[in-house]
Structure formats: structure tokens, C-alpha cells
């Protein structure tokens, strides 16, 4: 079983002392965690990705016998959802305490800077209430703590800052893994991987595994692929190679090496599939794989990168449904949705401006103005009955014309 594990998971530290780097941050966090009279009920761990924030929380929970109840960016974190999960977790005794040596729960809110948009509405204020009434440690993690929306949270949290892990520490970590996996690695190769990771231990271990897992040797020459991956290869080039791949392996390797933005790439694949496959059965099969890949992309979010291989695999299978039927075609790129958003940006901005004016006058949100006011205003304007309203709303003549000509809301 452990043979198939990603090395990041296999060698994930189980004890606080084994978490690499950020010693002062670790000490500050453990001081807070062990303190019986905490001045702040919650702690906010912040710093770049891959430096050990989540690992430290899990290691501390494991070492001190707590059960972690986690909500991360892949969960919806609206007020209702936060209350449903966090309130019981922070106020009731954990069931675990009765059958194993658990000291209780820890509420861990990962990537709190990702709480945004309509789906997560009210999430931050709900969190604040949870922190105020919490009887268990509340831990939060964020990459960017300077966001406006996190200010109220920062006031009630002890702040612990994490920094990039230094190159010598990453090299030592990689060397340790190599010893355990029986990989003979050149120092220069490990150095290259460490430098390439820019302080992100997780990505360094993933790079090491991808380069050394099969051959069990690693030379500086082997690491050149990393430079190739980081090279800024355009979407068109990757799409062209992806669709012309002669096998599943070729498509998989290409996806691994590329550094295209995954969300845009999957949209572009969806747009181009009808041009690639003319046979409806093949097309349906390919779309099926893309939909599965899309599902994995959703689950990956910004945290579960160990699922990336499944995302790549399904996407590669979509390209390899029928390699022999490939005929060159004109690619649609960038994705249609992105192009549409680009072309309609001006119109959307004008509409937002109008909705802002309506909202200000009528004391409603922009969204309400868009849905409940604009359609009627348009009808009134078309019938020339709304000019007094337009002047009351302080709409400019071009905005009135815009509303008259608008066809879709």
C-alpha cells in the first residue's frame, strides 16, 4: 500500500520536531497550543504554500492526541456551513475521547483567505462568532493574511508567520528520502530541485519522486526536465501536442511537464474536442473523461494536490481515445468562455455601473438591481416612459442607450 503512496504523504512528518524549517514559527505555535490560559482563542498561521502549515497542525494534533476537524477551500464555507461543522466541533466533547486517547477536537480552517464570493457569504463573520465561543483550539491557515476581509479575524487571532524553507534544509530532506527509497542522487541534482522549488518542500518532494521513482538514480541531467516544465510554454503549443499525442503515456507526460493554468486548459480541451473527434461515440467517451477530470480538479482545489495525477490521467485518456484518427485542425484557443468574458468586459462594466447607481438610489444590492430593476427599466425605456426615472437615477445618455439596446440580462 505504502509503495503506491505519494512521497509527500509517505514522509509527511507525524511529529512536530520532524517538520522541516520555520523553527521559531513552530515554537510560537506549540507555545500557544500547549498554553492553558490562551490570551487569544485562535491562531492564524500564514505564509507561502508548501512550507508546512497544514503539516504542523496535523503533526501537533497527532503528537498531543487531538482530533482535527478540518474545513478547507474545497468545502463551501458559508455562514450556515461553518456553523453546521464548526459550532458542534468547538462546543461539544469529541466522541473519540470515549474510545481512544483523544484529548478533544481542534477546529482547523485551512486557506481562510480563500473564503470568498457568494458561496461563502457570511463565512468570516460566522468564524468570528465561533472563535468567540470556542472551547477548543481554533487554528486557521492562510497564504495572504493582508486581505481586507481577514482583518477582523486577525484581531482575535495570535499570528504566526511561516517563511519559505531554505535550500540547505530542503536538500537535507530530499537526501533523507533518497536514503530511505534507495535512490542514488547527485548532490547537484538535489540542489537543482531545491532551488527550483523556491522554498516549497511539497513541490520539491513531488519533483524528486517524479524524477527518481522509477530509475532509482538521479543526475543533474535528469533535472533539466524541471527547467523545461517551468519554461513559459503557451497554451496553443500544449494543446497541439496534447491532441496529437500518439499514446496515453505521451499525453500524460506532456501534461506533467506543462505549466499551463489547469482551469483554462480543461476549458480549452472541452472547446476543441468536437474538432478533434468527428465520431460521436469517440466524442462522447472523450467528454466523459474530461468531465471526470473536471471533477478531480474541483476536489483538488488549492490543497489536495495528491489528486493531480488522477486529473492528469483522465485528461490524458480524453486525448488518447483514438490516437490513429488524429488529423490536424485549427485550434480554438483561448477558451471560448475566456474570449467571451474578454469581449463583453466593456458591456459588463457599464451594466455594473448602472446597477451601482440604481443600488445607491433604491438602497438595494447591485445583484438585486440587475435582476429586479434593470429588466423593467429596459421595458420602460423602450416605451419612452422612463426618462424621468433615468434622470432621477442620474443615468448618462449613453447608459440609457445601452439599456435600450441590451438584449440579454
Amino acid at each position, binding site marked *: 500500500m505504502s509503495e503506491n503512496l505519494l512521497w509527500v504523504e509517505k514522509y509527511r512528518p507525524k511529529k512536530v520536531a520532524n517538520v*522541516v524549517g520555520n523553527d521559531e514559527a513552530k515554537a510560537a505555535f506549540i507555545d500557544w497550543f500547549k498554553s492553558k490560559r490562551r490570551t487569544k482563542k485562535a491562531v492564524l498561521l500564514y505564509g507561502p504554500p508548501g512550507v508546512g502549515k497544514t503539516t504542523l497542525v496535523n503533526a501537533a494534533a497527532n503528537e498531543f492526541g487531538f482530533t482535527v476537524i478540518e474545513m478547507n477551500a474545497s468545502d463551501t464555507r458559508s455562514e450556515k456551513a461553518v456553523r453546521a461543522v464548526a459550532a458542534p466541533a468547538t462546543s461539544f466533547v469529541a466522541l473519540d475521547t470515549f474510545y481512544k486517547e483523544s484529548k478533544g477536537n481542534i477546529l482547523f480552517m485551512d486557506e481562510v483567505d480563500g473564503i470568498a464570493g457568494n458561496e461563502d457569504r457570511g463565512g468570516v463573520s460566522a468564524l468570528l462568532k465561533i472563535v468567540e465561543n470556542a472551547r477548543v483550539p481554533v487554528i486557521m491557515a492562510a497564504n495572504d493574511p493582508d486581505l481586507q476581509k481577514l482583518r477582523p479575524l486577525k484581531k482575535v487571532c495570535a499570528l*504566526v508567520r511561516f517563511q*519559505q524553507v531554505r*535550500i*540547505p534544509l530542503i*536538500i537535507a530532506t530530499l537526501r533523507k528520502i533518497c536514503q530511505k527509497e534507495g535512490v542514488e542522487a547527485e548532490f547537484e541534482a538535489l540542489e537543482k530541485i531545491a532551488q527550483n522549488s523556491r522554498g516549497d518542500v511539497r513541490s520539491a518532494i513531488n519533483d524528486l519522486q517524479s524524477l527518481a521513482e522509477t530509475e532509482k538514480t538521479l543526475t543533474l541531467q535528469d533535472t533539466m526536465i524541471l527547467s523545461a516544465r517551468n519554461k513559459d510554454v503557451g497554451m496553443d503549443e500544449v494543446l497541439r501536442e496534447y491532441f496529437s499525442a500518439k499514446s496515453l503515456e505521451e499525453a500524460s507526460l506532456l501534461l506533467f511537464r506543462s505549466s499551463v493554468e489547469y482551469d483554462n486548459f480543461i476549458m480549452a480541451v472541452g472547446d476543441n474536442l468536437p474538432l478533434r473527434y468527428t465520431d460521436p461515440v469517440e466524442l462522447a467517451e472523450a467528454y466523459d473523461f474530461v468531465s471526470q477530470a473536471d471533477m478531480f480538479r474541483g476536489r483538488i482545489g488549492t490543497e489536495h494536490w495528491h489528486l493531480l495525477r488522477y486529473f492528469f490521467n483522465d485528461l490524458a485518456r480524453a486525448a488518447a481515445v483514438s490516437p490513429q484518427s488524429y488529423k490536424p485542425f485549427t485550434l480554438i484557443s483561448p477558451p471560448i468562455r475566456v474570449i467571451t468574458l474578454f469581449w463583453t468586459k466593456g458591456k459588463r462594466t457599464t451594466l455594473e455601473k448602472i446597477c451601482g447607481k440604481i443600488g445607491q438610489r433604491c438602497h438595494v444590492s447591485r445583484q438585486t438591481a440587475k435582476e429586479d430593476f434593470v429588466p423593467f427599466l429596459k421595458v420602460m425605456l423602450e416605451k419612452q416612459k422612463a426618462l424621468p426615472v433615468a434622470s432621477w437615477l442620474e443615468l448618462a445618455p449613453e447608459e440609457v442607450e445601452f439599456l435600450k439596446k441590451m438584449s440579454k440580462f
Partner: protein
Amino acid sequence: MVVLNKKAFRLPRLEKDKFVLLMRLGLQYDRANGTFCVNSYNNIEKVIDTLGEILNDKNVGFMQSCLICGKDFPCLECRYYEICETKNLPFKCICGRCLEEGKTIGE
């Protein structure tokens, strides 16, 4: 470059404003020994800038201790000094000798 000992270092006599600023930024003062040490690390860049002003040297750094052999060494000795983006923190790293000898953490 001025390399300070993170556990205890002395500074020339300070004006009240500077002293208050350093305390606010996270330093601690040991009245008995007349030494300072770093208590909070969240504002370490500002601490170092302020110390640089006080000591009239832009390059102020703290001594690092090796996670493997435990010896203290300055960052300047490190082969990655130029490209390291986290020179100020943490105060623990791996010295050049242990790195060259291929030692790993926890051996």
C-alpha cells in the same frame, strides 16, 4: 556586516523612542544583564532595519545554529547566501560542512 547572537546581544545606549519601538517590534530586554533578545518573530525585517539604524550598518544578521551539528555560524558563510530569500528567519539552518558531508537531519 554585524552578526548578532540571537540569544543575547548588547546595543549602545538607546533613546527612549528607539527602545520602545524595539520592544513593540518584539525584542525583549534583560535588565540584569543589559542584553536584548528576539521574543516575537513576526516583524523581524523591521527589527533588523531598526537595529541597522542603531548600529550604523545596513547588513545586520543573526547567528544561525546548525540543526545537525549544533554549531553556530553566520549566514555569510552559506553558499546560497546570494539567492536565499529568508536570510532573517529562521535562526536554524544547516551549516556548509554538514551539507557537504551529506549528513541529514535526525541522523
